[in-house]
């Protein structure tokens, strides 16, 4: 079982995914929630690349991983801009306190 | 005022050109200085000639000192301390270079050069010109005690000896005086009686 194969990579990815979900669910700070999302995206990427390596699908998995990285960077930029705006309006970034739409 | 495109482009290119050109000009100047010989003086090896009448470390020519204490009194920071002992008549202390007869043993002549403010005020009152400023300016020390300069020609034992001598002499003189006084006092009550007796 110590011989590293596809299962090992997938397990690492699964644990990383769960940790990311845990972070998103428990954290109050919006920036920390973002970090959890980054963990989830990374775990998805590990899956894509692992399947592209161990399956016979060519290299589409790596291409998708590349796209995910690009999307993550765009998402981080937008999300941080929004967080910054929230901070300007509410003077804190705790997601459970920002629960009203107007005023 | 909104600039039109051509003018903006012209200014933009001019800025670019100016940026590169001025940097190159600056680089040429610094490159020239790369080969200019150094103008700094390598201090411990080469020293700047000091002007006349510089005021640096104090020096006392103790052979000429008559122990008059005038320098110590002139010092604004009290860095000079002088102790003297009077000589006894039998001793010959010699004369100073300008012919003054010395009358005091200088048992202590200490200058705390760390306190000295180099004002030169001690130099002027000296009647024998034995204290003066030299051009020595490198006298840093590791211990502060080393900056206390002792100029007295007599060491501690000799100084103590002189003191004892003087005290002995003084005591002798006192004794003589007392004896003389006693001698003078003894006949005293008789003196008025003598004529009366005589």
């Amino acid at each position, binding site marked *: 079982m110590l011989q590293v194969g596809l299962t090992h990579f997938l397990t690492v990815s699964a644990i990383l995914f769960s940790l990311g979900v845990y972070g998103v669910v428990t954290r109050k700070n919006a920036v920390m929630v973002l970090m959890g999302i980054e963990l989830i995206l990374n775990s998805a990427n590990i899956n894509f690349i692992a399947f592209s390596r161990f399956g016979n699908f060519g290299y589409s998995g790596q291409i998708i991983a590349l796209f995910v990285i690009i999307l993550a960077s765009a998402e981080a930029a937008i999300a941080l801009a929004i967080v910054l705006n929230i901070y300007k309006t509410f003077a804190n970034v705790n997601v459970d306190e920002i629960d009203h739409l107007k005023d | 005022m909104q600039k039109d495109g051509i003018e903006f482009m012209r200014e933009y290119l001019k800025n670019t050109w100016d940026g590169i050109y001025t940097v190159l000009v600056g*680089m040429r*100047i*610094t490159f020239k*200085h*790369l080969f200019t*010989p*150094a*103008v*700094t003086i390598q201090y411990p090896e080469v020293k700047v000639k000091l002007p006349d009448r510089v005021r640096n470390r104090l020096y006392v020519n103790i052979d000429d000192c008559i122990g008059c204490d005038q320098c110590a009194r002139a010092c604004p920071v009290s860095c000079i301390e002088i102790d003297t002992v009077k000589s006894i008549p039998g001793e010959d202390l010699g004369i100073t270079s300008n012919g003054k007869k010395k009358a005091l043993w200088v048992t202590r002549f200490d200058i705390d050069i760390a306190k000295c403010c180099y004002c030169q005020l001690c130099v002027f009152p000296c009647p024998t010109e034995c204290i003066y400023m030299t051009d020595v300016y490198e006298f840093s020390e590791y211990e502060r005690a080393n900056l206390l300069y002792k100029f007295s020609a007599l060491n501690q034992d000799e100084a103590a000896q002189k003191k004892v001598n003087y005290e002995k002499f003084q005591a002798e003189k006192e004794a003589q005086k007392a004896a003389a006084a006693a001698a003078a006092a003894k006949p005293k009550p008789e003196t008025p009686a003598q004529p009366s007796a005589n």
Partner: protein
Amino acid sequence: MYQFFFDLTGNVIISTLAVALVPLICVLLVTLFGVWLERKVSAWMQDRVGPNRIGPYGIFQCVADFVKMLQKEDAVSSEVDGVLYNIAPVLVFAGSFAAFAVIPFASTIIGSQVEVGLFYMLAASSFVVAGILMGGWSSNNKYSLLGSMRSAAQIISYEIPTALVVLSMVMLMGTLNLTQISEMQTGNFWHWNIFGGPGWALSKFLLIPFMVVGFIIIFISTLAEVNRTPFDIPEAESELVAGYFTEYCGMKYGMFMLAEYGNMFAVSLLVSVLFFGGYQSPVGYLGNVLGIKWLVSLEQFSWFFAKGWFFIFVQMWLRWTLPRLRVDQLMTLCWKYLIPYAVINLVIIGIISLL
């Protein structure tokens, strides 16, 4: 080189360490000699003499400095954030040292022949940014924090023109492998990329002006990436004491210094690989004439070092020529001048390479 050590020892770990040791020694020597040269060059440009006490021309001053730094007390403020404060210098040094893994010092002396070498060098520098932010934040000193924020903003801004110029060169050469890029510029100096690359086609002569533009852009932007004057606002002495390493002393400060000089050397080597033929000699090799194989490697090594030192010298030269830029001037230079020129350069080089 790994294969050579592997054949010699037959052990994976020993040969890996041996391969890693070569750039490490290079970085240490570069730092030692670089500190001395920095002081000497600044002295010469200001008509002074510079360090001259220890050894001929003060050459062993660097050793004295190093010994002093090693035995200094490691004074740590009680308010610093312990863990991050200690990790930061290591991270910065690791980032700058990692770049050396792919630099070909000669055709045979190279840490790793990875295909993504050029890209990897750009990526390794991002660890430096993270380390700088870490050090600045954990020092618990507002000057450190300001310096590190400025530094991060500056480095990630100037990565864009660097990457654009690298992109245009990659487009032209068709590879990211630094050894292959160097090998393509073999022969005499008119085969170097700054002179339009090998061959005598029309495109070679068309390329020359754009190569010069590309060289100027990448030189300026790498200068900014390693925080050298005139782009030294992150460690501006007159405003921020020493920027992000204000609170550091002893060997931790020494690690920052090592990283700084290592970075300077790395970007100099990057520029010389991209535009000045890397380890290639401008005139040919004595070893080829005499038929001695190892002499060629030695010559290549010396040529590469000479080129690297020349660019380090130019960096020092600029340091004593130009005053520090203001923050707005810095950003104007990057976003309004370097990036547009780099993009135009990229397009034109692309068109020429189609010819």
